């Protein structure tokens, strides 16, 4: 089944209650944060809490990720040493500027995997792109490692580096979003949008989530549990979309049975991109728990 990453919920790694309970809000991915969300004096305690939590708590079918500190900090290496042993699904690399920075993290992960007898490649990677250099290098970053399953935009640092601020319509992020999305699609991996940090503004969150879905993103990083349902509703296909997709695929199968290369529905030709889109809608519907005919895939 298609892996859903409609929402990646940040969970500060030093907050015991959230580390224990955040999965009950059902994000697609729980992202335990050891980086910017944790004050410096608590880096060691957050790392230890997340280490033991991941080794003990059953998070069910919610994907687990840990955002580590960069290798240019005193914390990055210890984070990897600890977290690989705790076996989350993903490690998220912050402020990724180049393909080399992905490979450096990968190399240490591999060392630890070998040390503990874990199959090399078990821990997958996500890279956050948060600087102009990272945006420019997005195509190389997206292809830097077979472990990399997605890249994400981190906008707060980026707009600061660009010399601007975040606006309501997000015009300042249009180039970065587009470049990151194209890089991800060209590499066949996921693209995840940045957080919407005005947490009391649900209308703004919904508008921004609709925008990034329309651009083609797979999901959004979120900071508040109440943003999860809003995002999932936007990313989940409607019943009408699912029925149309089913009709398209039914027409495809009927044409195949007839041995015909020409597919028509309601008197209109159906081309390959329409079939691809119909399959994507059905996959997304099934993964989201929406009733759909999986025999048509």
């Amino acid at each position, binding site marked *: 089944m298609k892996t859903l990453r409609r929402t990646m919920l940040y969970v500060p790694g030093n907050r015991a209650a959230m580390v224990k309970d955040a999965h009950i809000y059902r994000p697609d991915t729980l992202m335990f944060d050891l980086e910017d969300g944790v004050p410096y004096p608590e880096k060691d305690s957050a790392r230890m809490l997340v280490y033991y939590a991941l080794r003990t708590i059953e998070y069910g079918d919610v994907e687990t990720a840990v955002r580590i500190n960069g290798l240019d900090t005193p914390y990055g290496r210890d984070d990897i*040493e600890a977290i690989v042993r705790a076996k989350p699904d993903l490690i998220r690399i912050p402020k990724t500027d180049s393909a080399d920075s992905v490979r450096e993290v990968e190399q240490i992960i591999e060392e630890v995997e070998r040390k503990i007898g874990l199959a090399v490649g078990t821990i997958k990677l996500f890279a956050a792109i948060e600087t102009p250099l990272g945006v420019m290098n997005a195509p190389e970053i997206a292809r830097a490692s077979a472990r990399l399953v997605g890249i994400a935009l981190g906008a707060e640092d980026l707009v600061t580096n660009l010399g601007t601020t975040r606006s309501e319509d997000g015009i300042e992020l249009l180039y970065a979003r587009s470049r990151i999305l194209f890089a991800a699609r060209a590499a066949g991996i996921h693209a995840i949008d940045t957080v919407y940090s005005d947490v009391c503004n649900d209308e703004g969150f919904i508008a921004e989530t609709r925008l990034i879905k329309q651009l083609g993103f797979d999901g959004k990083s979120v900071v508040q549990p109440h943003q999860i349902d809003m995002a999932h509703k936007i990313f989940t296909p409607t019943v009408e979309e699912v029925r149309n997709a089913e009709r398209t695929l039914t027409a495809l199968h009927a044409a195949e049975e007839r041995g015909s290369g020409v597919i028509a529905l309601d008197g209109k030709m159906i081309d390959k991109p329409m079939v691809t889109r119909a399959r994507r809608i059905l996959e997304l519907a099934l993964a989201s728990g929406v009733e759909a005919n999986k025999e048509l895939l």
Partner: protein
Amino acid sequence: MKIERTGMAGSLESSDVLVTIDPNVGRGVEVVLKSIAESRFGKQIRLLIEETLSELEVVEARVQVEDRSALDCTIKARLVTAIHRAAKMSHPDWEHLS
């Protein structure tokens, strides 16, 4: 591991625990536990504390634990962090942590 100074970790927030470790030279291990769940889980928490101290080879320490209904894994994480801080050990030996 030798306890060289006071080490603290955790908080008094719900689902957390505040652990304070002090040197206890010549007096072995002493555990002071305050928990709202003491009547039900006190024995289990004490056992977890003793096992963790033993695992990290801490033989002399005064350990104060103020529990706010933390999970066992949270108690262990906070205790291990407090021990590392008290022992001035900035890089844990991950290969020997359970």
